[in-house]
């Protein structure tokens, strides 16, 4: 038999090896799943991982990759700060929706005024909206000791209802002939989060995501705030002893992660999505949780993980349309990734030792 024992120090090798092994295991078991579903697993994996990057239509998929990866990365960076401090914001999806609604609401209210700084104002409104939505569970936690996991998650459903109400009511396009959904912001030049360089998928959200990665990296490695954050997560009592105020930490982390999620929502609604619609949100807020962990809660790791996850989204669409794989199959595939990652994670801090048989 084997015994699991704690390593004296975390294994640096496994810290980075675990995600790689997790991806490989996901390929093996995901491939098996595809095979059971009657699809050639090798072909499916090729379509997921190879085709979007180097296939015949890569010119179309590569920009898509950026468009999908940017919100994931932006949200995951925010979440990772909280996760590092032991603050579990599971409701980024809701903050994403509220951010989008606030920003879009501002634009729709000013329509059709052309204003040079409208998009920046929308970004700020989106960030504030998301931050406030994130602060609801934070305040409830510090005031009444509620569980932020539960509250933030439940607020996602509240946000979804709000989104539906907005799309069907207040923000509905008055010239939309009764169809649900708002005016299309893509047709409102001041509010449109357009591609910076045409045909690349590079919009302002991508820029914001990259800035967030760099900023988070520097703050975590060089600033006392990052240090306090890491202490809070690793040893809350020691953090308190060091002088970290846990209440403030909860508020700041939930505010930042909510704000970044809100910003991501705004970039999406003002850009690729274009309008407030019932099904505007597609789960970026939840997938970002996987991205954050897949990236070891490390900014650079999150950057890579976000791209990888975007790849599975796009690859998933390809397998869906070309091979008839159900959407659920690709979702299971993504779920496997997190599952294997968490399982492999054990090896960073623990190791297996064969146990000698002993008469207890």
């Amino acid at each position, binding site marked *: 038999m084997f015994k699991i024992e704690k390593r*004296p120090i975390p294994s640096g090798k496994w810290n980075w090896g675990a995600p790689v092994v997790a991806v490989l295991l996901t390929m093996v078991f995901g491939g098996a799943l595809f095979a059971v579903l009657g699809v050639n697993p090798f072909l499916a994996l090729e379509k997921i991982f190879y085709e979007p990057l180097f296939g015949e239509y890569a010119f179309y998929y590569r920009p898509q990759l950026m468009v999908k990866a940017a919100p994931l990365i932006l949200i995951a960076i925010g979440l990772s700060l909280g996760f590092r401090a032991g603050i579990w914001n599971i409701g980024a999806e809701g903050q994403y929706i509220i951010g989008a609604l606030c920003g879009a609401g501002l634009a729709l209210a000013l329509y059709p005024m052309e204003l040079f700084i409208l998009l920046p104002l929308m970004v700020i409104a989106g960030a504030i909206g998301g931050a406030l939505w994130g602060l609801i569970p934070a305040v409830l936690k510090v005031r009444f000791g509620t569980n932020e996991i539960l509250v933030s998650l439940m607020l996602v459903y509240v946000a979804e209802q709000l989104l539906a109400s907005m799309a069907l009511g207040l923000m509905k396009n008055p010239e939309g002939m009764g169809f649900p959904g708002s005016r299309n912001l893509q047709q409102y030049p001041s509010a449109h989060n357009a591609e910076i360089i045409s045909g690349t998928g590079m919009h302002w959200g991508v820029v914001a995501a990259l800035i967030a990665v760099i900023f988070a990296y520097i703050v975590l490695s060089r*600033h006392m705030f990052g*240090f306090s954050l890491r*202490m809070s997560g690793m040893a809350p*009592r020691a953090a308190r*002893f060091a002088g970290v105020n846990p209440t403030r930490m909860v508020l700041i982390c939930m505010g930042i992660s909510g704000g970044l999620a809100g910003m991501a929502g705004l970039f999406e609604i003002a850009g690729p999505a274009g309008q407030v619609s019932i099904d505007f949100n597609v789960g970026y807020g939840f997938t970002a949780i996987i991205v954050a962990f897949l990236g070891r809660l490390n900014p650079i790791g999150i950057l890579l993980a976000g791209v990888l996850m975007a790849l599975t989204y796009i690859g998933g669409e390809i397998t869906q349309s070309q091979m008839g794989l159900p959407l659920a199959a690709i979702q299971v595939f993504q779920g496997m990734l997190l599952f294997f990652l968490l399982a492999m994670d054990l090896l960073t801090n623990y190791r297996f030792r064969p146990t000698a048989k002993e008469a*207890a």
Partner: protein
Amino acid sequence: MGTPLLTLSGLTKAYPGVVANDDVSFDIQQGEVHALLGENGAGKSTLVKMIYGLVSPDSGKMTLNGAPFVPASPNAARAAGVAMVFQHFSLFDALSVAENVALGMDNPPPQGELATKIRTVSDAYGLPLDPHRTVGDLSAGERQRVEIIRCLLQDPKLLIMDEPTSVLTPQEVEILFKTLRKLSAEGTAILYISHKLEEIRSLCDNATILRLGKKVATCIPAQKTAAELAEMMVGTSLKPPKRAADVSSSEVALHVSGLNLPPAQAFGTSLRDITLTLHKGEVLGIGGVAGNGQDELLAALSGERLCAAEQVRLNGKPVGNLGPTARRRLGLLAAPEERLGHAAVPDMSLTENALLTGVTRQAFAKGGWINWAAAKGYAERIIHQFDVRTPGPHVAARALSGGNLQKFVIGREVLQAPHVLVVNQPTWGVDASAAAAIRQALLDLAAEGAAIVCISQDLDELMEISDRFAALNEGRLTQARPAAGLTIEEIGLMMGGAHGMEAAHV
């Protein structure tokens, strides 16, 4: 008396670096209330864990009703009629009393039947408890009743109770004692673990006293005074104090007055009306049995818990409402008892841990931006000056042995030239040479004019380094008395709860 219910003979259990139990033997008769008395770390827990099948002894034998008793697991121990109520309850808040009881049983009867049984037992033993209430709504005393009833439903021959009164109000203690006496009258033996001397004197028929893993004596507690019991518990090997410097004339460095603090968490101890005065260059030793407010006092002094500004004064300045960082800036430093997770972050490197408290006074961060090279240099200085055995400052704190990490933690504070340093259990679990080095460092610091509060359960240590001595007892601090000339009996009384010396003649 016929065959003893349980006999222990020569039980020995060693852990790496420490012999928890060394050749312990005693008997428990049927229906006897037997106290197991000893300081923290005396080996009480290990001993009962062996009886309850959680730990297997290295050597020695047990018999139950004359038959060899080798429980391989708590299940086996329960099957043989040994039940245990732990100090910390294992109950589910969201479930009802009956559901919780059912979870702890091997073959629970249906809920309705079980509720009736619970009612019967609770009536029979005077333990008022409604089986349908949710455990989350119960007081600590009621929760303990759930645990006790869970045990009683299995009809135990021996009931082990681990510090059962630490979470109870005096009224609840009365109820518990009535129950225990009734059980004992019906023939159930009780092994009662505690360090509360008066309780043991009033409840227990016999007491076995452990010190440093060895059995010191078995006695009839009612025939001994609290002071005699305390003396047996802590030993008489105290050395005379080496220091007798009179510093009472020098300036006051730290003054605490009328400090009351409710416990930060369930099962914590409230601080009650703590008053102390500490002079420059003085070492104040604070003794007391664990769990009497040591952690809480440290937190109140370090700034982890806040109070009214004037309740804590540092060099005359009110600091009670300031957090740890502000107090550090003013020169009030602390080193908590728990090295891993409180004084240091286990998974962080020594450099990062040096930064943890060093950042304030050593200016390792300008505008929040960390100067890692300076922090690393400081970690190296601590390692060098305090002889911390480690490959280097990049090593994670958890990789260090207890003694080495403790030297690092103490060194980290001492090298910051504090005006007042508060340490809790500075040499707990540390080998003798490291302990001597740490004590010397504290004395050197005091010689340079710093004032030191040393909270410890090691009386030898306190006598060795303190100028004055006070004891914590249920969150109250006795008046500090000059350490020189204190007798072991006086110390025992200060720790044992008799406030003032008039109560000495029990």
